[in-house]
C-alpha cells in the first residue's frame, strides 16, 4: 500500500499492515492524522513514511469500522484538529492483529531461515 520510490532507505509496507500500525500508534493515546504519520515514521526510524493518500483513507476506514473514533479538539497550533482514539473494539482488533502478525513473522522467518 504505502511505498516510496524516491528514497533508497525506505521499505514497502506489507499489504494490510497499515491498519495494524495505526491502531498500535493510537494505543499510546489520542492523536491527529499528522501525528499518527509522524509517530510511525519516528518509531520506524524513518524507514516507513506513510503517504497521506494512504493514511487518511485508512483512518476513515477504521473509523467507519468502529475500531477508532474521533473528536474535534484545539491542537497545539490553536487550530481545530481531529483526534483519533482507539475504541474497545479497536483494542481487541489490535491484540488479534498483533498475534497474527507475530505468527506470520515466525512462520516466514522459519521458511526463510538459511539452510
Amino acid at each position, binding site marked *: 500500500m504505502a511505498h516510496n520510490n524516491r528514497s533508497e532507505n525506505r521499505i514497502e509496507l506489507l499489504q494490510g499492515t497499515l491498519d495494524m500500525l495505526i491502531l498500535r500508534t493510537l494505543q499510546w493515546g489520542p492523536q*491527529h*492524522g*499528522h501525528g499518527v*504519520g509522524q509517530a510511525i515514521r519516528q518509531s520506524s526510524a524513518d524507514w516507513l513514511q506513510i*503517504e*497521506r*493518500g494512504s493514511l*487518511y*483513507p485508512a483512518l*476513515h*476506514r477504521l473509523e*467507519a469500522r468502529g475500531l477508532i473514533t474521533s473528536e*474535534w479538539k484545539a*491542537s497545539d*497550533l490553536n*487550530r*481545530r*484538529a*481531529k483526534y483519533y482514539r482507539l475504541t474497545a473494539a479497536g483494542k481487541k482488533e489490535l491484540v488479534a492483529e498483533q498475534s497474527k502478525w507475530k505468527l506470520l513473522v515466525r512462520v516466514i522467518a522459519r521458511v526463510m531461515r538459511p539452510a
Partner: protein
Amino acid sequence: MMQWDFWRRKRRETDLDDEIAHDLALDAEERIRSGATRQEAEQASRRDFGNVLLLKEGIRETWGWTWLQRLAQDLRYGWRTLRKNPLFATMAVLSLALGIGANTAIFSFMDAILMRALPVWRPGDLVILNWRAKGAPGVVHGLSGSWYDDPHTGWSSGDYPFPAYDLLRTNNNVLSNMFGFADAGRLNLTVQGQADLIDGQLVSGNFFSSLGVRPAAGRLISDDDDRAGATPTVVISYNYWRRRFAKSADAVGQSIFLNRMPFRIAGVCPPEFFGVDPAGAPELFIPLHAAPLFTEDPQDDAKRRFLDKNFYWLEIMGRLRPGTSISEAQTVLAARFQRYVNSTASTEEEKVDLPALVLAAGGSGIDSLRREYSKPLFLLMAMVGLILAIACANIANLLLARAAARQREIAVRLSLGAARLRVIRQLLTESLLLAFLGGMLGVWVAELGIRFLTWLLANGRDSFTLHASLSGQVLAFTFALALITGILFGLVPAIQATRVDITPALKQIRASASRSRLRLNKMLAIYQVAISLLLTIAAILFVRTLSSLHSVELGFDDENVLLFRLNARQAGYSDAALDRFYTDLWARFRTIPGVLDLSLSDFALVSGATGQTGVAIPGRQVPHGRESTSVLKIGPAFFSTMRIPILLGRELQERDMTRSFKVAVVNEVFAKKYFPNQNPTGRHFDLGGDGGKSDEFEIIGVAKAARYNSLKQAIPPVVYIPFSQRVDGMSFELRTHSDPLGLVATVRQIVRQVDPHLPVTDVNTQSRQIDQTINTERIFAQLCSCFATLALLMSCIGLYGMMAYTVERRTGEIGIRMALGADRRRIISMVLREMILIGATGLTIGLAAAWGTTRYLESFLFGLKPKDPLAILLATGILVVALVVACYHPALRASRIDPLTALRHE
C-alpha cells in the same frame, strides 16, 4: 431523510477539508522550524502531500454510499438522460399518464361501489338476510321492495313479512342484533310552510343502536319511537340539516309535516352516515310503525304491514355474535325461516317453490349498486388494463430502441468495470422514474376521468348518488400500478441492453447483438396489434348496440315532449278532489302558448316503470291460474299527444274519464293475444283479479304497439285505462312547439298558483328520459370508442417506432442489397413483408382472442350477436389501414436509402 443526509454529507466535507488543512499547517510549521521561509514551506508541504482531490475521493469511498444516495445518483442520471430525449420522455410519460389515469379512475369507482365499508361500528360483523326461490314464490302474496329475477340463479329478494322478522329476532343465538328497514319513497316534507320532496327510509327502533351510529344533534330513533301510537318522530340527515336548517340547533324538536301529517324532528344523523344502501341517500329516517300514517287508511295499512304473514316488505340486517360464522348463522336462521314459510303456505301449490333464506356479508351495505355496476365496471377495468398493457409495450419498445442507441454508452460503462446489476439498476431507475412521472400525471388524468365518468353515469339525473373519489386506497393502487408498470416495461429492455458484446459495441459495429432484441420488438408489436383489434371489435359492438337501440321503433314520437311529475295525494288530496285537481291542471296547462297537445299518465313511457295486474276475459279458458297484463292509467288525449296511431275505434277522451261505465284502449299485442282474428272493440276484460271485486272495462279502441317501459324488452300486452281515482302521483306529457324545457318556469308558476305546497319533480324531456334508460349502453359505446382510438393510436406509434428502428438497423444491409442490384420495389416489399407478418400474426391472435372473449359482452349487447361478422370485419379493416399508415413512412424511407451513403455509414 434526503435532506438530513445531505447536510451530514456537507458537514463531513468541511471536516475533511479542516483535517487536511491542519495536516498541511503542521507540516509547514515543521519546515519553518528547520529554516525554510513560510512560502517555501507551504509550497513544499503541498507538493509532498500529493493529490488532494484523489485523496478526498479515496476517503469518500470509505464513507460508503447509502442505497438512498445511490438512488439519488441514479435518479439524477436518469433525469438527465430523459431531458436529453424530451420527445421520448414526453411520449412515454403521456401514454403512461393516460393508461394509469384511466385505470385509477375506473378503480376509484370500483373502490366506491364494491369495496367501501359502511361508516358504522364494526361493519365486518354485519350480515344481510336475503332469500332465493326458483321462480316467483306463490307464498309471497305481495311484495313491496326490490326483487331480482336472474336466469341462472332464479328469484331473489331481501324483503320479509314483519311477522317473520319478529320470529327470527326472538331468542336469536347467532345474531346479536337484528334490525329492519324499508324504503319510504319520496315524501312531501313541509317545513315552515315550504314543501320539498325528499327520500325517506323506514327504520326499526333498534336500527341506529345496532349500527352503532351516534347523533350529530338531538337523539336518534329508539325502540320507544317505533311502536303503534308513539309520538311521530323523524331523524334527518346531516346533509338536509345543513341545507334546510343551516346546522341550527333549533332544528331539533321542530314540528314538520310529512305528507300533511305532523311529525317532530328528534335529531340529526352524523355527516358520514348515508343509511345502509350506498345507492341511496335518504334524508329522513322514520320509525317503521309510522308508515301507515301516510296512507289513506292507516288501520288497513298497519294490518297489512304488521300482521299479514304473506306480505313481504321489510329488509333485514343483523350483526353476527362474536365467534359465529356466516354459514353457522345461516343454518340456524334458514331452518327457522323454512318453518315459517311452510306454515304460511296455504295451498299445496304454494309449497312447491318456497323461498329459502340466504345470508350475505353486509359490511358494505345493500348491494343494489354492486348489482347494477359491478359487471360494467369489471369490463371497463379489463379494457383500461389492456390499454395500460399497450402503453407498457410501447414504452418497452421505445426503450429497446433507445437501448440500441445507447449500446456504446452501456458498453463503455461495463468495460470500465460497472457491475451488470448496477447498470440494470440504473436503467430500471430510469424506467421507474418514467413510471412515477406518468403516475403523478395519471392522478390528474384520473381526477378528470372521475368527473367525466360521474357526468356520463349521472346523465342529467339529479338523484345520482354515486360519488367516487381519490381515496388513500385508490392512490395506493395508483402507486402500485406505476411501480408494476415501471418494472414491467423496464426490466426486459434493461436486461437486454446490458447483454452487449462489449468489443464490437465499442467499435460501433452494427447489429451484431440485436437479433434477439428485434425478436422481442416484434413480439411486442404483434401483441399490440392483437389487443388493439380486440378493443376495436368491442368498441364497434357497443357502437352498433347503441345505434340499434337508437333505431328501435318507439311507436310514438319522443321529440318535443316535456315530462314532469306531481303527487297531489301527498299534498293531501284524495278521491274526487284528486281527480278534480289533475283535471283542473290539465285544463290550465292547455292554455300555455306553445303547447300543442297534452295528457297525463301514472308514469312516463320508457322510463323503466311498469304496472302489472291480473286480467281475466269473460269466456276465456286459462290453463293455469291467472294471466297478467301491463297497465297504463292515462288522462284524456294520451294517444294524440304521444302520436300513437289508433288502429281501430277511438281513443280515450275527457268524457271517458268519469263515466260510470268504464272504457279502455288496448294495444295491438293485447288484441292479438286475447282476441286473435277478432274485432276486440266492444269486448270486455276484467282487472278485478281473484279478489272477488269485479273491475270490468269495455274496449273502445286498439292502439298501435308502442314501447312501454323499456327499449330492450319486447312490447307487452298493454291496457290503457282512465286514471280517475286510481292513482297517487301523475306524470304530465306536454307536446310543445319548440324546446320543451323552455316551458318549465311557466309550468311551475301554474302549479304554484293552484297549490304552493306541491313541488314539481322529475322534469325531463321524453327523448332524454329514453336516453337515460340506455345509459350503460351509451357509456360503453362512448368510452369504448375512446379506448379503442387510444389503443390504435398507441399501437400505431409503437409500430411506427418499431418499423423505423428496424429500417434504421438494416440500413447497411439494405445498402448492400441495393448495391448488388435490388430495386426499390424489392426493398419495399422486403420491409412490407415483415410488417405483413407482424400484422397478420397480431390480427390472427386478436381474432382468436375476440372469438373466445366477446361472449362475455353478450349481456351488454342489443340487436346483434357477440360474434357479429360486420363488427369483426370492420375492426380488421380499421386495423389493416392503421398498420399501413404506421408502416408507410418507414418503408418509403427504406426504399430511399442511398447505397453509397449506407455503405459508408458502416
